[in-house]
């Protein structure tokens, strides 16, 4: 009896020990895998630093982005170079404005366009794709045919058409980018939904009479989040590229606002006069941020995609 009791006690202890071990969720596993990926971690840090720069930079700036430094205005190429003494850490632009502050402003706007654009794409694309995939049949084929048609339109041209007609403003840029950016997302989400729909838990939900809307909200969308997260991080640089492209042409963000594309365009236009810093500083931030987004996206895909494990 005593021996048996002892045994039971031990078993009890063991059981309580086992129960103390935390369950490993998909997201926990993914996080561990993600942080093992060096490129992704470095990128995450870089991106964090860029964000920090755009928020804390103004504290260190001696000039605001709208002030004109009249003392260098006459001869930018010899006086407007980057220096700590004059307070123009990145030099000045063609109009004698402080490039450090301009780059901060551009970074903020470009990142905002990227993130907001991706957010619109995620929300609209996920709902659209999940609906099409879940209902299937005729609804699906009509909805996806619409996506096909919209996708084969050269959207950059339509976007510029929109900007010309309704005026060039950041709001219009958001609307225009939002209109076209969700298409890929909708396709990817639909494909995933088709496979999730056949899972037993969805079948179970249908049999106990859960409404379609609730099934999509509670069962389909949470299981899509992995794919959506990966694709969203890859969408952000895509949006930034689109915005920069349009701003490079002078059709996007308007003065006094600026963005990476607009700054690169300015720098590219004036580099013939020997003011190379006007091109290189914005280009540097543009390149490292895009790199970071791409590597984070890759890292997330490796972490969340069970196929490659």
């Amino acid at each position, binding site marked *: 009896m005593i021996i048996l009791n002892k045994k039971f006690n031990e078993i009890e202890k063991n059981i309580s020990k086992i129960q103390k071990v935390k369950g490993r969720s998909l997201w926990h596993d993914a996080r561990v895998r993600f942080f093992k990926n060096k490129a992704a971690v470095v990128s995450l840090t870089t991106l964090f630093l860029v964000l920090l720069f755009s928020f804390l930079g103004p504290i260190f700036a001696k000039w605001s982005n709208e002030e004109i430094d009249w003392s260098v205005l006459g001869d930018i190429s010899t006086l407007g170079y980057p220096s700590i003494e004059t307070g123009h850490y990145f030099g000045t632009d063609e109009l004698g404005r402080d490039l450090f502050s301009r780059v901060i402003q551009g970074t903020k706007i470009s990142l905002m366009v990227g993130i907001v654009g991706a957010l619109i794409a995620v929300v609209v694309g996920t709902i659209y794709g999940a609906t099409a995939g879940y209902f299937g049949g005729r609804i699906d084929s009509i909805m996806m*045919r619409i996506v*096909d*048609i919209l996708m*084969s*339109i*050269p959207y*950059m*041209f*339509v976007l*510029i*058409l*929109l*900007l*010309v*007609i*309704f005026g060039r403003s950041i709001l219009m840029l958001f609307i225009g980018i939002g209109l076209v950016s969700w298409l890929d997302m909708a396709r990817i989400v639909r494909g995933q939904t088709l496979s999730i729909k056949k899972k037993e838990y969805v079948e179970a939900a249908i049999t106990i009479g859960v409404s379609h809307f609730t099934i999509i909200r509670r069962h389909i969308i949470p299981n899509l989040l992995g794919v959506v997260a990966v694709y969203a991080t890859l969408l952000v*640089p895509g949006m930034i*590229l689109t915005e*920069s*492209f349009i701003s*490079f*042409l*002078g*059709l996007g963000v308007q003065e006094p606002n600026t963005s990476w*594309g607009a700054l*690169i*365009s300015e*720098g*590219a236009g004036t*580099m*013939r006069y020997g003011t*190379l810093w006007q*091109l290189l500083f914005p*280009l540097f931030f*543009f*390149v490292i941020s*895009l*790199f970071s987004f*791409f590597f984070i996206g890759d890292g997330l895909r490796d972490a969340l995609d069970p196929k490659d494990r």
Partner: protein
Amino acid sequence: MINFILKRISIAIPTILILIIISFILMHSAPGGPFTSEKPLPEQVLKNINAKYGLDQPMYIQMYNYITGIIFNFDFGPSFRYKDRSVNDLIAQGFPVTLKYGSWSFIIAVFFGVSLGVIAAIRQNSYLDYLSVGFSVSAQVLPNFVMAPILVLIFTLWLGWLPGGGWEGGKIQFVIMPVIALSTSYMASIARLTRSSMLEVLNSNFIRTARAKGIPKYKIIFSHALKPTLLPVISYLGPAFVGMITGSVVIDMYFSTGGIGLHFVNGALNRDYSTIMGITILIGCLTITFNLLVDIIYAWIDPKIRYDS
């Protein structure tokens, strides 16, 4: 096969019509007519001008005239800014230029992209492979509007080898930089796609069988592995084509090559509605036709597609 082609054409035609209708409605919902300016014209003059361009008719008649004009006469109407030139003149002047450097870029991107990808896959984990992967990763963040100033900086300002812009009837030294700037990022994407696709194919059973039979390696690669490898590459050609046509706007702007992109941006900056609309529609039709071709080629290579859909 014929069924497949007919089905695709039956999607392409309504797509083109929708594109035309969307841009037409967009143009007409623009605040103010094309002839409203800051100095208001006398009412009778405005009336006469509107009558000349047919703008006094109801909208559906205008739309009907516009669409039939495009379809039957390939006529995009007059330019609203240049009184002496029609949109057709602008296109006829700019299109050959765009076509020349565009098709070179396309050929170069596909040829070198595929070769690079195949070499990288055959010599996996060699220095050549790392070089090609490194190139394709970095070219992601070097879109045409970043490449163009960098190329000018190196080859025009530092080395002085190539002229920084102009066209001169398409002499070789004027074509080189536009082609490199336009093709680099697509070459990189194609190389990436080819590499991963080739690696997957090389690991499949039929290649192992071929190897077991003692077929020489180059023959396995060219007559067994290449065809399935190219499938994802072919489906990427559509987006690459759109991207390059869009990129040509930047090339025309930056290198002053005088292609249709230049007219597009000028039209956009001057609010020359009929020009941007005409170019948008033309490019839309080109894109849709090209996608149709790609689909047909794809179905021709891969019978699965032909019979599934």
